[in-house]
């Protein structure tokens, strides 16, 4: 038995796979933000009792959480002190010396997480080539330890310039601090968290990690104790921002790696389902109430990026390249000062919600447009739990239509088209703008509102197939349990791609190899389940941004050099539209992703028995023309191998799937609805 848990701000989702081919057990219950583990334990106890399951059979419990992210946003995190090179006390606050919005004098970057009086600079300065300009003043570090201890810090970070390549001073200062600070104070050096150049981003990542350590540590204590209390024999695994899992041990040390894990777990779930269904190349579209998240997977692998923001601070951790935009079911439609129709980024959220909930909402939303057009059920949603007042939605959209001087139907369609354009733009930025052609990919949709937009988005991008998984609302929880253990090691070398540079590359790889080996041992990964993925970051000399390229360490140096050169020019050409073949290439960093494969539960299979008949019919407006009498199917009635010809609507608890006229959908063995987008 495998369990996946996703704790969000509003709901805690639990998915259980009994690993016998039977359906997933799913449970959604309100989150308990003050003590997130309560909802988890409560939910697990309930579902196990109901189904007569024994905790002793749990082989893995995987957990994605936003506990850290929420703590940062609310700034309920630990007190952090900082030791840095003399003269650079303000570096963390100056940042990149820019304002966040060029044309807004009233918005600021968030105040730094280390207060200025807790930032202490000590005599120390190493230069780019490793030469010592000012040696580390150890007494000054001891003195600083005293001041920080008196200020009752929870954690101290050590951030020296050029430590990505020359970490000795940071390590020495950390030793001194550990010896001179109370036992409960954690000490972290920037080179241990993210040993790459560009000081502000490295320092910021280290500070955020430090700020999370206390809060995540105590959460993990409570969580592991209460899960053990249920009788679960295996250790909890934590989802990471790059989609893989990590042990509780790693999560305590590097809590920052879990910070963006929610969307990553969803992508992991999509990856598993899409690959099984024969779609290794997909673009995911996860539409919720407020935002849409998109990601691209090629050959069953998700693209990763390093540069992300968390609570307004830059962080550099491996994370799936998930692009989020402000368009969801609750997004509000409004007329801007210029008279043009806009949708989002403001959302009506769950409260007051769209007009059609009739709970006090005053502005029309995307959901109201869908209700008005008949795409969403105009009587009830959520299996009858949410009554819908279609008339209120129609009134609101009609008011908007009057102001826009177009018909109410055109307005409702316009709302969907504008929201769709926002999602299309997000997808273009991770596909077309990176040299991929969307028509080579299937669109994999999830989240409550994804399947309402699937066809419009796919058509706009020339995509031919849409895949809707059986439980789109709970894919994050499902995804977590399917992931492997993984971690990333990286080192900056800044060497030319030539004979000498390859020597640097190989010696860096050796060092990374050793670090990966230590990790495999610490995580008890059996040798046959070890996997390594090697990459370099490279650029033309003089550029500032690197492109990531995979490489094969076993190749001869000549071949490796030739292949890397060719691959780099080609990637530059697809990414930026030109390559400068005579220009020298610089290797910026070498990285290895260490993966410990875990046993995966088998995917449940859908029965071939079911009911082919629709449960009802209703008029639906698909385009500018007229309403079409459309059959409505219940998702729970569908059976493996079933064909559905559009126009059709498929409803399930928290999702509605729209199949347009001339489209056909087939239900596959695993219960996915695969829609063929013919009307191109």
């Amino acid at each position: 038995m495998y369990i996946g848990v996703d704790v969000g701000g509003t709901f805690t989702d639990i998915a259980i796979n009994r690993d016998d081919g039977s359906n997933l057990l799913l449970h959604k219950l309100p989150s308990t933000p003050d003590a997130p583990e309560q909802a988890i334990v409560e939910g697990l106890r309930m579902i196990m009792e109901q189904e007569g399951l024994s905790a002793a059979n749990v082989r893995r419990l995987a957990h994605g959480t936003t506990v850290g992210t929420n703590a940062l946003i609310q700034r309920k995190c630990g007190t952090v002190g900082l030791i840095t090179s003399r003269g650079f006390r303000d570096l963390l606050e100056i940042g990149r010396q820019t304002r966040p919005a060029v044309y807004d004098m009233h918005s600021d970057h968030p105040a730094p997480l280390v207060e200025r009086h807790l930032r202490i600079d000590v005599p120390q300065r190493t230069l780019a080539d490793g030469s010592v300009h000012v040696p580390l003043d150890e007494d000054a570090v001891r003195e600083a330890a005293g001041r920080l201890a008196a200020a009752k810090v929870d954690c101290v970070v050590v951030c020296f310039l050029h430590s990505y390549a020359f970490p000795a001073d940071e390590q020495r200062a950390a030793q001194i601090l550990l010896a001179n600070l109370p036992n409960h104070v954690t000490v972290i050096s920037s080179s241990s968290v993210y040993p790459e150049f560009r000081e502000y981003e490295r320092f910021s990542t280290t500070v955020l990690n430090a700020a999370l350590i206390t809060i995540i540590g105590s959460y993990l204590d409570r969580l592991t104790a209460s899960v053990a209390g249920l009788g679960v024999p295996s250790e909890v695994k934590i989802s990471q921002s790059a989609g893989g899992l990590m042990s509780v041990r790693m999560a305590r040390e590097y809590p920052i790696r879990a910070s963006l894990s929610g969307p990553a777990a969803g992508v992991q779930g999509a990856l598993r389902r899409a690959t099984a269904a024969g779609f290794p190349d997909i673009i995911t579209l996860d539409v919720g109430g407020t935002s849409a998240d998109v990601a691209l997977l090629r050959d069953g692998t998700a693209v990763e990026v390093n540069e992300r923001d968390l609570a307004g601070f830059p962080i550099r951790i491996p994370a799936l390249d998930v692009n989020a935009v402000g368009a969801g079911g609750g997004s509000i439609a409004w007329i801007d000062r210029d008279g043009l129709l806009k949708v989002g980024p403001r959302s009506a959220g769950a409260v007051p919600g769209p007009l059609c909930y009739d709970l006090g909402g005053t502005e029309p939303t995307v959901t109201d447009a869908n209700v008005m057009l008949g795409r969403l059920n105009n009587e009830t949603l959520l299996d009858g739990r949410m009554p819908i007042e279609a008339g209120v939605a129609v009134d609101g959209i009609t008011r908007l239509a009057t102001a826009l001087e177009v018909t109410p139907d055109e307005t409702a369609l316009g709302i969907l088209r504008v929201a769709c354009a926002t999602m299309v733009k997000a997808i273009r930025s991770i596909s077309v703008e990176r040299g991929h052609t969307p028509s080579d990919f299937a669109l994999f949709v999830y989240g409550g509102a994804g399947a309402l937009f699937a066809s419009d988005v796919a058509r706009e991008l020339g995509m031919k197939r849409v895949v809707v998984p059986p439980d789109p609302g709970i894919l994050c929880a499902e995804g977590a349990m399917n992931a492997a253990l993984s971690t990333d090691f990286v080192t900056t070398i800044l060497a030319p791609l030539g004979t000498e540079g390859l020597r640097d590359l190989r010696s860096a790889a050796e060092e990374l190899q050793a670090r990966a080996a230590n990790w495999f041992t610490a995580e008890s990964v059996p040798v046959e389940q070890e996997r390594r993925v090697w990459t370099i970051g490279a650029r033309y000399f003089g550029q500032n941004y690197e492109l990531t390229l995979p490489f094969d360490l076993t190749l001869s140096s000549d071949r490796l050099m030739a292949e890397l050169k060719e691959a780099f020019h080609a990637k530059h050409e697809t990414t930026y539209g030109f390559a400068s073949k005579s220009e020298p290439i610089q290797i910026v960093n070498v990285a290895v992703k260490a993966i410990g494969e875990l046993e995966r539960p088998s995917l449940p299979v859908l029965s071939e028995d079911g009911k082919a008949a629709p449960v009802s019919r209703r008029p639906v407006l698909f385009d500018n023309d007229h309403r079409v009498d459309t059959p409505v199917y219940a998702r729970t009635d569908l059976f493996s191998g079933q064909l559905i010809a559009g126009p059709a609507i498929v409803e399930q608890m928290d999702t509605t799937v729209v199949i347009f006229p001339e489209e056909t959908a087939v239900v596959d063995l695993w219960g996915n609805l695969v829609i063929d987008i013919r009307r191109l």
Partner: protein
Amino acid sequence: MAMSPIDAELLRNAMASIADEMYIALLKSAYSTNIKERRDHSTALFDAAGRVVVQGESMPLHLASMLGLVEVVLEKYGTEGVRPGDMFLSNDPYVGRGSHLPDVAIAAPVFHDGKLIMFACNIAHHADIGGMSPGSMAGGMTEIYQEGLRIPPIRLMRDGEVIQDVMDMILLNVRVPEERLGDYNAQIAANQLALRRTAPLIQRWSPDRIIEGCDAIIAAVARRTRAAISDLPNGVYHFEDLVDDDGLSREDIRIKVAISVTNDEIEFDFDGTDPQVEGNNNVTMAGLQAACLYCLKVLLDPDCPQNHGMLNPVTIKAPKGSVVNATFPAASAARAQTAQRIVDVILGALAPAYPERITAASNGANTSAAFFGRSAEGKYYVYLETLGGGAGARAYRDGTDGVQVHMTNTSNLPIEALETEYPLMIERYEYVEDSGGAGKYRGGLGIRRDYRPIGHETTFSGQGERFVHSPWGIFGGAPGATGKFAILSDSGKERRLANKPSALRVGPDSVINVVTAGAGGYGDPQERPVDAVAGDRKSGKFSQDYIDKHYPKQS
């Protein structure tokens, strides 16, 4: 039939995403630090008449200077003289309607079935454009010929091929030509990207709908700008302030404005402003327009998309040959310094009209430090960077410390990148204690940055402003501290430099000390809350002496 507000939004969205994509592509593939790290570039799509329809994320100083090139190309070649596969470039402030020579604009016409539909254009600040001084930004020059290569609007490409003669001519005139070639390639590629992206867009919407849509998108911004101006009370608002000097012969250069708001229209009249100067901080009409539009946007409607429509309700008057409407052959490389002061006087004038959005004066400069030299290993380098300073205090909050303000928002180069690429080291990078003006809300602090050449002698040139005339406080707030350039020798001597030093040689036994101005405070210092004053003390940003002096009651 006019385009519906729904279709206009959809087309705007589609066109804006092309301009955004050009912007990112140029940023990521360029060589000049000015582009790749400091984002001193902009991208836009124009209609066939030469009006900006959508602009990517962009530098305020490019708000209008980009407007020039396409217009001039159309005047010079006529619509019939522009052919598919052409690209044009120019950098000249006078014949090309740019704002200074290092900003090179490149435009590509977009055709559909032989018909001119629009133009894609980008502009980028090159690290060098030739001239007397490395980096092409130094002071000490009196006419534009000394500042660099003047490129009139000419063809760079024909039939989709670069005209090699033109490129050779340009590259021979600039320093580090290999890198500059990389920048030209990146700019050409960004336009080619736009050509690839606009083709399916035009196909899908049809050329007529696109042309109709461009009108609708420009009209929408015009409407929106008019609505925003209506928020200001009618009246005439006056202000004046001084630029420190021109680095050569003139000090205390006066900039004066009278702003008339009449319902939904606004007029900026710079009558009474001093004549253009011998130094290089003259602003041409393109720069003046950019500064006025920046103020409108930042005060009235920060989210307003930028296009030609912004100009619709705006009239700008300035004496020809004045420092804000300079004529040939005035030097203009450092026009950003004066543009910052133009912003100061506009915001100062409108303070009574919009006290809750206005701020006290910020550091009012685009403080720049340029280094040229030959490393101990014999490699030539040119490096330019600009520094932030204090931002003015606001009606509800303190001003930001150490940040780029108004017409510039370029990020710093990471020290670890700088020290890896250039034989320079940074010894200090920190806030300047006590440099923010006191007030109910205090002004932001200036920045101190110290540079040391390693193992060789470097040639330093700088541009400083608000080194003499303090950034003013408002509604009772105190002014912020001024900045300075100095040489600190290891023997302990400090030598104060001119505000715009040119080609100064500095060896490895000295440090170049750059201090930028702070910013003014907002409101009476006596009203500053006691815990805010306690915070000033605890953070170490203000000394006890300063607190005793400005906040005697609260200390």
